[in-house]
């Protein structure tokens, strides 16, 4: 009986932590809401809802690696080492929506957390890989390190840390899905960050006769979009 419970417990644990692979391809990813390392916060586990169905993956080409900047190797709260460490540039993906932050986030446990996700490009090189429009829409504003796209759906997407000099869009420009926006970099105004794209999605949710605009979980939408990119049908 004791062994039976041990085996059942092992199987359950394995099922909960198993990385999903895709069609036998190299790509693998942790479940949505599973933050790595676990000390990086409490993710929104089990919310596999695709909030932005059909979007294009925001980086033009694969591979790309969705994982924590802060808690990754060389990150401010991560293990010591180079930001270019190969561990940062490998699968599986790990959700980092709701990672510990002081930002107000009603959909995260405790009401605070990371409002989007961080994505690394194929290699640790800035100004090499393009971020692209996830859906048809219009560029509504460009700041020193933020480009904002309002999609036809009404959803707003923020692209952070693109290289300002490489931007291919201007405020007010209409863009098609997949159109180049700018090169992923470490731009954060005059205080650079690590090389990555911070990507988030904000939408309005109607609750009865009231409504609220919130940053929604992008992870499942991005897993879906990335699979299509790998399949050659982005």
């Amino acid at each position, binding site marked *: 009986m004791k062994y039976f419970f041990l085996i059942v417990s092992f199987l359950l644990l394995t099922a909960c932590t198993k990385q999903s692979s895709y069609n036998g391809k190299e790509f693998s990813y942790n479940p949505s809401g599973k933050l790595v390392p676990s000390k990086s916060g409490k993710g929104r586990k089990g919310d596999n809802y695709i909030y932005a169905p059909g979007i294009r993956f925001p980086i033009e080409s694969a591979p790309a690696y969705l994982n924590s900047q802060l808690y990754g190797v060389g990150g401010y709260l991560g293990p010591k080492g180079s930001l270019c460490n190969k561990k940062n540039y490998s699968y599986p993906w790990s959700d980092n929506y709701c990672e510990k932050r002081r930002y107000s986030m009603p959909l995260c446990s405790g009401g605070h957390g990371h409002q989007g996700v961080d994505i690394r490009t194929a290699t640790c090189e800035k100004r090499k890989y393009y971020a692209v429009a996830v859906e048809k829409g219009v560029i*509504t*504003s460009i*700041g*020193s390190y933020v480009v904002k796209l309002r999609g036809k*759906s*009404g959803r707003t997407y923020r692209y952070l840390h693109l290289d300002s000099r490489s931007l291919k869009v201007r405020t*007010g420009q209409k863009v098609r899905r997949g159109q180049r926006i700018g090169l992923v970099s470490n731009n954060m*105004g005059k205080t650079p960050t690590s090389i990555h794209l911070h990507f988030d999605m904000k939408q309005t949710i*109607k*609750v009865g006769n009231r409504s609220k605009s919130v940053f929604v979980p992008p992870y499942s939408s991005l897993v879906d979009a990335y699979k299509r990119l790998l399949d050659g049908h982005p």
Partner: protein
Amino acid sequence: MRLIFFTLFTLTFLNAGGGVLDVDWSSIDNSQQKPSAPYPSVLRDGIKDVHLPVYLSASYAYDKNMMVVAGENFYSVSFKLDGASVVFEGDKTFQESVAPTNPEFQKIVKQTPPVEYVESEGMMIAEFNRHGVNYAITVECDEPKTDGRCTEQSFVQKLYRHLVMVGGRR
């Protein structure tokens, strides 16, 4: 258990059918609609087709260097400041709807203050709902870690306090 709960929650309560929110025009303060001088043409022309109340801070409403991006259901008006930028936005669309009985969103909506000041990736944002529509003021700084406009709430609070309605059609 949590996995089952969230799966059931998302499947049961979220409805991906979006739409347009109703604007409560009766709650508009009409006295605000009379400017002391005509607004610059970039603003008048830019928002002429916007079907929701358009708000800007009074001190920016006459700045001819503003950039206006707008459609029937939204607007975004941005300004370059010295070492920063400010964006005023309004949007009357929604992308999801949930049942009023949904416990998570019921709690979220109930706990939302009239205006919320939110830090966000080095930016400072004021979010609020007026006339049934969602608005935001975003301040982004060239030096986000040291510029008081992005580390403190006072600047964005001031922008919020001085909002005036500069247009919008029924």
